């Protein structure tokens, strides 16, 4: 569509948004839409003249696609757990479960995108910057790691905080130190602890106490393990498939593995980080198994992989390129340390039974340092080669 109607229209209204034009103050917003619609037309004169077909937009779109299995399983499980808590016999794979899950999760997704993108647009406008599509992935991740019953206004406040303080003041997409989705969760965790911890928050409707049957605890496998009730842990198969209480996207290890496969196949997620984090987690689990001074330490080391947010966060958060290490060696170190820390915090820390969020946020801080030492080592290696 060369010089189609739309292009003509955009060209016609363009001067209005230029400096001094009537709507000059909306220049950033205008450019954001223009580049979304059209490829800019400056011609490059020197190599490389061809480019890989993958760009930022496609990269982000692929991550969202990789998340879809987890979204689907999460919605089904949200419905399934809700009806279970009410003593109703509704199958996991049923339209009823899916519908309930959909009406509970969809508002979270909508709020997440509207608030997040709105914040980005507003900041870009004020700073006179271009708009990046950096929130596309974060916007989908956030609804998947918060309790389904979280009040929407709290979610909105947390997202505004994470995007503004966590990302925009550092310079926007690509410049943030912390993973935006995890920062949102951390904000909620410390600002509204009542809504973020305990056994009741993970099941739709339970927090408000709607018709919950007696004796239904709603405790996640991790909470059970932390309380020492290893006997009441669900079967490994249930945990793997995701028939367990938990936040929307984290329950089904199977769905997450499908996502991991997509990320690795397309080269977007670093398999090095995923593998080294898993190895780190397993080793730490083994070490704790050796000591085994309390029941939580006795949880078989491999079960840590299918409990809590370990799999989800290793696949989708640890591999976030912006906050991870860039160098290849650095990726091994970074992932490995995340695995170790996550299980260590999870099991040893008495306050709450999950360590993934803090492990990754902590390593986010150290990623540039790891890169620095890898680069220095690389320089030394080359200098050695010269003198040799």
């Amino acid at each position, binding site marked *: 569509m060369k010089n189609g109607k739309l292009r003509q229209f955009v060209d016609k209204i363009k001067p209005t948004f230029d400096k001094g034009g009537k709507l000059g103050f909306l220049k950033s917003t205008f450019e954001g839409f223009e*580049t979304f619609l059209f490829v800019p037309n400056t011609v*490059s004169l020197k190599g490389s003249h061809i*480019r890989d077909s993958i760009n930022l937009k496609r990269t982000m779109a692929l991550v969202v696609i990789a998340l879809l299995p987890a979204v689907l399983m999460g919605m089904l499980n949200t419905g399934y757990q809700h009806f279970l808590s009410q003593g109703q016999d509704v199958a996991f794979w049923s339209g009823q479960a899916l519908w309930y899950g959909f009406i509970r999760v969809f508002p979270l997704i909508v709020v997440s995108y509207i608030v997040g993108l709105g914040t980005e647009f507003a900041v870009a406008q004020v700073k006179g910057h271009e708009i990046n599509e950096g929130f596309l992935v974060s916007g989908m991740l956030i609804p998947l790691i918060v309790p389904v019953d979280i009040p929407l206004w709290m979610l909105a406040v947390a997202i505004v905080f994470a995007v503004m303080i966590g990302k925009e003041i550092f310079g926007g*997409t690509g410049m943030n130190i912390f993973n935006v989705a995890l920062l949102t969760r951390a904000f909620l965790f410390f600002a509204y602890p009542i809504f973020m911890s305990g056994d009741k928050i993970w099941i739709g409707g339970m927090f408000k106490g709607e018709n919950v049957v007696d004796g239904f605890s709603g405790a996640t496998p991790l909470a059970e393990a932390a309380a020492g009730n290893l006997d009441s842990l669900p079967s490994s198969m249930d945990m793997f498939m995701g028939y367990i209480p938990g936040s929307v996207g984290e329950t089904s290890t199977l769905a997450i593995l499908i996502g991991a496969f997509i990320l690795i196949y397309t080269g977007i997620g670093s398999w090095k980080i995923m593998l080294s984090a898993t190895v780190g987690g397993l080793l730490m689990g083994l070490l704790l198994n050796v000591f085994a001074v309390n029941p939580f330490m006795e949880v078989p080391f491999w079960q840590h992989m299918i409990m809590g947010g370990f799999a989800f966060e290793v696949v989708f958060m640890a591999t976030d*390129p912006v906050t991870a290490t860039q160098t*290849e060696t650095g990726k091994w170190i970074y992932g490995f340390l995340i695995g170790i820390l996550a299980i260590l915090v999870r099991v040893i820390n008495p306050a709450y039974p999950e360590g993934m969020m803090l492990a990754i946020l902590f390593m986010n801080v150290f990623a540039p340092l790891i890169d620095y030492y890898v*680069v220095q080592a690389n320089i030394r290696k*080359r200098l050695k080669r010269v003198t040799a």
Partner: protein
Amino acid sequence: MASKASIKILPVPSMVKIPVAQHIGTPAEVVVARNDQVKVGQVIAKSGGFISSNIHSSVSGKVQKIDKLPDASGYRQSMVIIEVDGDEWLESIDRSDTLVTEISATREEIVAKTLEMGIVGLGGATFPTHVKLSVPKGKKAEVLIINGVECEPYLTSDHRLMLEKGEEILVGTQILMKALDVSKAYIGIESNKPDAIQHLSGIASKYDGIEVVPLKVMYPQGGEKQLIKAIIDREVPSGGLPIDVGTVVHNVGTTFAVYEAVQNNKPLFERVVTVTGKDVKDPANYMVRIGASVTDLLDASGGIPDGTGKIINGGPMMGKAIGSTDIPVTKGTSGIVLIPEDKAKRNKIQNCIRCGKCISVCPMGLEPYLLMSLSELSRWEDVELNKAMDCMECGSCSFTCPASRPLLDYIRLGKSNVLKIIRSRNK
């Protein structure tokens, strides 16, 4: 794209413009004057130093003038303009097609011949071949590597040459082995050219010490240092040359030219050029006289298609866009690539998302993202420290960057500044 069709011979144009600087090093000195009659193969400019080469006429006719005209870079440089009249070759050139397998020339004669016949590296770098054959004192060549890896995607001239001139290339390899006094030679070919591998392996079995090595398909496998690493697993030190690890690398096109120079007495005045592009009507490889214009080439392949955004001299990764097609084909012209308009646009530069793809693709093990940001900040000392000078400008980083960052452009900027620093330090 153009690998199926055999090499076509481009008709002799009515006029040629032959630049005197077609090689790395000192430009040659013009030895003809206006209105002189020249024959095909006659020297028109003599080598101007050790790193230099002879330039020969590619046509017969009358020297119209010697003038400064724009070349592929857009800058003006001295060219000899010859009006063509017939096609009369020097008698000394053996024009028969019979293969001459016996190498009667001595080592010294071979080196002298490559200089006399104006042979330079035809892979694109145009480094004078006689210099590469003169191994510096204290160093010893152990292995000869013949580069049959097409240096860039889209180009197919080496591929066709291997299929059509296999015997000559093998004899050329023998000549180079004799000149370097080595007993072992490898011909590296990417495995996406099974026909060429099979063809050359068949012929190589008749010769001692020559082995065809199939290589993994990847860019830039055709880089000297990558090739050496892939074939004999030796690593050229930072700032060093292949000879530092006992190797000399020559391109198959050069090897063929060496054969013609030594066995047939034929100077380098024509070469194979790929003309290709998505919408090109007749993509093909042409045997072209040096000095013919790019316009002549494009006319032969069906003209410039509608919607062409830019024309590249060289390959799509490292080539340079040209502003006019009225420039001559030189010894270094490996291909002409036409890029359609929608692919010719520079994408909007976005923030680095630190994905590290540039690091994983860099064939020299550098950190392109770091070199770019250091260049942006004008921290040239740090650019040098991070070994920007090792960059061979293959463009893989710019190709792969999902944020469309012009990594290579900034690294080039960094390199030119580092070069200034190095020069001022040496003063």
